[in-house]
């Protein structure tokens, strides 16, 4: 494989076109653009440039471009780039000078959304090495590219999936060894009680020390304050957006669920993430005032209990909206961010540890009981947001959620009196279950179960 064929490098190239797009792209210009784009990319761009989300999509693309630029710039200037999973806080890395996060699952998702042939060639490469086909595509696509040794390379990996996801931890352990780069790690103690939390904080502080050592610098309080201050603002906006979801019909476009965690998992702690969150809040407020909803009426309000599907954005998020099915968010939005006390290094690190402990997956799957914590969170969110149904995407690699899905479904019915649709499909690989089959199941579920209630 040539360097320009690496996933990160290709995605970076694609996102450079963002610079050449006009700030306000017209329908005609969009038409022209879609016309020249290859089919896979056309789908994604078509979804993101639907009129009701177009301005914010432009902003999001700009943020992603900056994020990718940042990684390259950091490398060029002799800094260190950390590859992290989605449940690690990027703001921790931004607290250091000359350090930059790139996020495995986000890169895989970008590849799936923006590249011709999606992420399949990288997945195939990983399988060719003998990695198992039941591994998580959210990582394996990015990792497959990294394994070709012709893509952009990180300087170290931080894994904080110990305790919450075996396959994620194992994949990054493998990659670090293969690439011969350090693996820093953080374990979730599978215990949300006082003792488990105390130990988790201990591990978190230890990781911060190891990062200081690796980077050869001490955390600077002023810088921390600035970065975490930005994260705090974004967190407040998260809750504003959360509250806006409660209106019926929901004024928050379906895609915002994805945009929220796109910001969370990449640039949280920067002004860009604050800006994106602010624009989302403003857009939803305007829509609320105007009483706008994409379909004639809101037919169903669905909460996705874990991941969504990312291999066909137009096919899912906007299709649901067109059919009056609101996507109130998914499990990756369930991280309940708190505002961190900026008084001292100690308070800031403790605040970060607390947030890290509650990141999606870490919080639920790294709990004493996966099913209990997951159920508690979903039940609470469904009640708060007025969901009338839940959908579990059944990503084939999430063995932990699959092993709790039945209990969660039946208990949700008892506690919230809402049904759950259990689907089966890989969220990042289209080969497993085609979008049309998934749509059909959702349609039938809404028609025959949700609407009949």
């Amino acid at each position, binding site marked *: 494989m040539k360097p320009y064929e690496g996933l990160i490098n290709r995605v970076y190239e694609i996102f450079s076109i963002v610079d050449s797009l006009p700030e306000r792209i017209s329908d005609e210009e969009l038409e022209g653009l879609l016309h020249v784009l290859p089919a896979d990319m056309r789908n994604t761009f078509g979804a993101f440039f639907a009129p009701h989300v177009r301005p914010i999509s432009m902003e999001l693309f700009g943020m992603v471009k900056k994020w990718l630029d940042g990684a390259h710039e950091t490398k060029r200037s002799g800094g260190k780039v950390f590859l992290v999973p989605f449940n690690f806080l990027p703001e921790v890395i931004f607290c250091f000078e000359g350090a930059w996060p790139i996020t495995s699952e986000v890169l895989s998702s970008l590849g799936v959304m923006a590249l011709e042939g999606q992420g399949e060639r990288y997945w195939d490469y990983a399988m060719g090495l003998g990695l*198992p086909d039941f591994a998580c595509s959210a990582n394996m696509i990015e990792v497959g590219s990294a394994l070709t040794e012709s893509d952009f390379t990180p300087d170290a990996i931080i894994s904080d999936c110990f305790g919450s996801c075996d396959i994620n931890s194992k994949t990054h352990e493998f990659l670090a060894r293969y690439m011969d780069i350090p693996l820093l790690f953080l374990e979730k103690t599978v215990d949300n009680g006082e003792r488990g939390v105390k130990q988790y904080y201990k591990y978190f502080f230890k990781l911060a020390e190891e990062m200081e050592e690796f980077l050869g610098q001490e955390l600077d309080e002023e810088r921390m304050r600035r970065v975490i201050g930005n994260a705090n603002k974004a967190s407040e906006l998260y809750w504003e957006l959360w509250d806006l979801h409660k209106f019926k019909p929901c004024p928050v476009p379906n895609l915002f669920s994805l945009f929220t965690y796109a910001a969370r998992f990449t640039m949280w702690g920067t002004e860009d993430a604050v800006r994106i969150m602010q624009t989302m809040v403003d857009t939803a407020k305007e829509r609320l005032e105007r009483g706008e909803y994409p379909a004639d009426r809101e037919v169903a309000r669905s909460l996705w209990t874990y991941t969504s599907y990312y291999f066909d954005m137009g096919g899912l998020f906007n299709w649901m909206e067109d059919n009056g099915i609101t996507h109130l968010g998914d499990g990756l939005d369930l991280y309940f961010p708190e505002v961190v006390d900026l008084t001292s290094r100690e308070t800031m690190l403790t605040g970060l540890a607390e947030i890290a402990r509650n990141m999606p997956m870490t919080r639920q799957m790294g709990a004493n009981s996966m099913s209990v914590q997951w159920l508690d969170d979903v039940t609470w969110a469904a009640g708060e947001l007025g969901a009338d149904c839940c959908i579990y995407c059944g990503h084939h690699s999430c063995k*932990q959620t699959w*092993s709790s899905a039945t209990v969660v479904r039946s208990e949700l019915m008892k506690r919230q009196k809402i049904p759950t649709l259990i689907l089966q499909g890989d969220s990042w690989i289209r080969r497993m279950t085609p979008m049309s089959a998934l749509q059909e199941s959702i349609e039938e579920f809404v028609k025959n179960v949700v609407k009949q209630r």
Partner: protein
Amino acid sequence: MRTLQCQSTDLFTEYVRDWKEKGGKVLGYACVATPVELIEAAGILPYRIKAFGHPDTELGDAYLARFNCRFCRSCLQLGLEGSYDFLDGLVETNGCDHLRGMFENWQHVKKYDFFHYLKVPHFLREDSLEYFVEELSLMRQAISEYFGVDITDEKIMRAVDIYDEVFAKLKKLYALREKVPPAVTGAEVMQVLCTGSSMMGEDFSAMLDEVLAEKAGASPPDYKARLIIMGSATDEVDLIADIESTGALIAADALCFGSRAFWKREGESADPMQLLAERYLGYLFCPRMFTEYERRRDYILETARRAGVDGAIITYNKFCDLHGVEAVSQRADLEAAGIPVLVLEKDYGSKADTGRIKTRVQAFLERLGK
């Protein structure tokens, strides 16, 4: 050995029945990170949960999913259908995500009065070891309170001594298998280990004396090649027997129902809790320990060399994340060390796989020129 043969595929063995009839308590556990010494020190029989290739999974499937390892689904099936009703409680460990799911569902349905979750860190460092010491103390306290027994330091140290004896005898048994010509087969060794995993250490030790005496001069049928086997937790004596029926000898193993459960259980501390933590967390040769690949690799290579193997079989259950990923590095490192490798992904307990497995092993033996 004949008694052993049936004991090693029965769940509710004569031994366990006898134990229960005498009023003994039995605690089920699944993972080798569980310090059985602590359970024994309470006078309770530690019983390692097995499925023995049990093929049905309908009940297990109703709670777990087809994306979960079938070993766990089979164990859950047996738990839910009542085959494990003789247990007086369960000790969960976070061995892997599938096992966690199995325990949660089992407990959700059966609601054992005694259910303890032993949280095992995924790495070895001073702070994780300290945490594990506390975990062991909590387990000691939970057992002691619920069963109303005093688990004294002396009782724990006595259990440690007994298990040291057991481990030493198991090493002798392994030596009988490793020697040329061998005195015992791979399938027989697994029978012994499976049987012992449902016995009190003292009785297992006595049984090992008999086995060692009986086997010392035995000569199993001739074989074509000496192999080491490693991978997922498997109690499938049949699988080993099937492999050996092709003319291979499983001369060594790095299995969880095998050498990984006992080969190195060392510790220096005089404090029993600290000692157990060192023995268990310190020597957990399992891919769940995410930062210790090199130690596992060295252990496997050392074992393979000692047994003078011609090749290696890496086997893992479909959907087993830990062993599935580990297999890639293991294969590369074994091959780099000049040991040819066969990687066998299989469905746990599936009889339908038998023919395919035998064919692949036969082809492997041919590849080895045997």
